């Protein structure tokens, strides 16, 4: 069966944690390939090898390019540790990628030091063998059009001519669990993606206000989670009913504080959910100063209500950068679907940019906040979202 060779990066550096990280990555790789059976994942010092049928190999490669922790993926050929066989395979690889007059270079890594030739020696042997063939081809060690990599390892030699970049980062799950406050917008899915990239296992929390927001808005949030699940694997989506809280705030509190009060309520609910789900951190898509409710004062006002850390991966991003990233991770087209969500519903004409804590607390005393938040939390509906298609 054809073979994929996977290189992983950062995790190789992490001393004693390494086996733990490798185990997670191994599991994540197996999970992402579900449905593409039969396949086999083997592991050998610094590399994963996946043998898989040729009809599924492209799809497998595509999926693996979204698994955090992976640095690159190559379609490789494996031969035994025999110089003649290595040379024959090298020539075959060049023929597969052949254009008349092309230049190439052989680059050998010999991690198996018991092999009888050194890397430079192997390079020159293969080079000579290839140049001896009928191919119209030249060596260029500085700017080769084709780089042929040969890895001499304990169980055999691996040869490959191309490398597709993986997403880098750390395997999802190695850094614990977080709750992402998801809105239907552009920012929060990107924030979630960045959390996943740093090895956080995510669950998403979405507030909806039926009947003011329709099923379309919920479907949009679910679709965004499906995108995140293609990177992070199975993901729990929590749908929290926000109507009563929103109504009470709207009817009893100063209009200019509405957005900040809503955010505070959401974060309190999110923190309680985090404790229930054994998550240790909250993520939001806020950046600094993007809209008038994202002033330092407003961030402080939301920070104040939770004792868990609230991380904002987009804090230093410009809108353009967020949009770029959203396009890359393919959340953009979903985010721009125009459904009302509960935050855009009652945007006051002039939100307070510098509310004081005293003002906010006074406003919160005007409504039965505790009961409302308890009921919101108690009525959360949870959906399990699988990476490809399914949900339940």
């Amino acid at each position, binding site marked *: 069966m054809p073979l994929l060779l996977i290189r992983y990066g950062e995790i190789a550096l992490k001393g004693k944690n390494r086996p733990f990280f490798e185990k997670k990555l191994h599991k994540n790789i197996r999970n992402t390939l579900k449905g593409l059976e039969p396949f086999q994942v083997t592991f050998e010092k610094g590399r994963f090898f996946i043998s898989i049928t040729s009809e599924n190999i492209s799809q497998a490669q595509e999926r693996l390019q979204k698994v955090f922790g992976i640095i690159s993926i190559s379609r490789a050929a494996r031969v035994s540790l025999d110089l003649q066989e290595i040379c024959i395979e090298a020539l075959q690889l060049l023929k597969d990628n052949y254009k008349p007059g092309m230049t190439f270079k052989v680059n050998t890594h010999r991690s198996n030091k018991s092999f009888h030739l050194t890397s430079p020696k192997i390079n020159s042997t293969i080079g000579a063998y290839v140049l001896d063939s009928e191919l119209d081809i030249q060596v260029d060690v500085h700017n080769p059009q084709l780089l042929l990599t040969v890895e001499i390892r304990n169980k055999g030699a691996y040869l490959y001519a191309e490398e597709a970049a993986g997403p880098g980062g750390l395997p999802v799950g190695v850094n614990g669990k977080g709750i992402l406050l998801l809105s239907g917008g552009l920012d929060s899915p990107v924030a979630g993606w960045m959390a996943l990239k740093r090895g956080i296992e995510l669950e998403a929390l979405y507030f909806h206000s039926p*009947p003011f927001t329709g099923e379309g808005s919920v479907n949009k949030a679910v679709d965004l989670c499906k995108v995140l699940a293609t990177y992070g694997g199975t993901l729990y989506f929590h749908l929290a009913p926000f109507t009563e809280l929103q109504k009470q705030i*709207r*009817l009893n509190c100063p209009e200019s504080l509405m957005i900040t009060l809503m955010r505070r309520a959401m974060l309190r609910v999110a923190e309680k959910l985090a404790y229930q789900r054994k998550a240790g951190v909250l993520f939001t898509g806020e950046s600094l100063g993007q809209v008038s409710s994202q002033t330092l004062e407003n961030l402080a006002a939301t920070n104040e209500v939770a004792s868990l850390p609230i991380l904002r991966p987009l804090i230093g991003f410009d809108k353009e950068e967020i949009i770029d990233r959203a396009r890359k991770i393919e959340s953009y087209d979903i985010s721009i679907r*125009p*459904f*009302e969500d509960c935050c855009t519903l009652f945007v006051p004409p002039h939100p307070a940019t510098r509310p004081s804590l005293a003002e906010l607390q006074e406003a919160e005393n005007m409504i039965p906040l505790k009961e409302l938040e308890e009921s919101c939390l108690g009525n959360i509906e949870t959906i399990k979202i699988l990476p490809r298609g399914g949900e339940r």
Partner: protein
Amino acid sequence: MMAREVYLDNSSTTPMHPEVLKEMQTLLERKYGNPSSLHRLGNDAERTLSSSRQLLAEQLGVKSGEIYFTSGGTESNNMALAGIARRNYRRGKHLLTSKIEHPSVLEPLKKLEVEGFQVTYLEPDRNGLLDPFQLAETVTPKTILVSVMHVNNEIGTIQPIAEIAAAIKRKNPQTIVHVDAVQSFTRLPLSPREQGIDVLSISAHKFHGPKGTGALYIRGGILVEPLLAGGEQEKGLRAGTENTPGIAAMALAARLNSENRKEKTAQSKIFKEKMLSSIETAHPWAQINGPRKAEGVPNILNISFPGLKGEIILHALEEHNIFVSTGSACHSRKNKPSHVLEAIGAEKAALDGAIRMSFSCMNTTEEIEYAASKIPQVISELKAFMS
């Protein structure tokens, strides 16, 4: 809550008539042949096709050879506009239409402008009505085509198409008159010959037929360039294997929906008046968009609640199993105000707070009574909380 849904979005699409559904199912199961095939199954399908063509032609009082089957209203409109303009440009490059047409008319016209045609877009009055004389004044010897919709899908205005056609022909007898009759066919009397219509679009799913099927009437002698290149179907004007089951279902739906037209219209009128009076009694601040009772069709009611948002009203009604639309379904997914309401001069608050109810003969008195009592209630609840 009503157990069944109360569907008041019939201008977007209609549920299929049970008999039509049954007919289509039978055809899909048994008459699957390709009308172009030479064997018996092909001949069967061909016979079904030609009897459907005949039935539809009779509804319109035209020759069956003047009916061309398409995939629906959008294709019919595209074929009429682009097909006629591209084939007749030697006579002139001026086209004429109104600002309140359906996107399937406006968008092809935009493309034709890029191709070098000049298009004049006439403004309607506050009720969405076009003035035949103003239209005729714009017609020049270079005007090859005028496109006017019979009934507006958003506000229900009925255009005086016979007067419009007559005024245009007086000015330039060569000008071809296209009518988008997607909303009116089967509901209002239509006879292209009498009314001076040269080309006419219809769509099956607007009159309890299946989606994906429509037709274009093209008066004999008018030259049209096909949109699709391919087989010889529809005399070379519309390549692609005919959707025989859909076409037969459309012809049946056309006949069924035209039956007892007077009674159906009278019933729609009662529905609309019931709805209107119950809303206006509770909410005198509500504003009707488009024509009041007499000038509009009885099955469309477009009404604004300034200060509320249409989308929120829609979802609030959905909770009670009542299904309406904001503007027209085709652009209600864009957060863009309706071009029709803009063209008739609606204010911003009215644009944002508009909902459209559209009835059909499949609605029952019970449903309308339920909706007419529920809607004012829901509006009161939303108003207390939103404005």
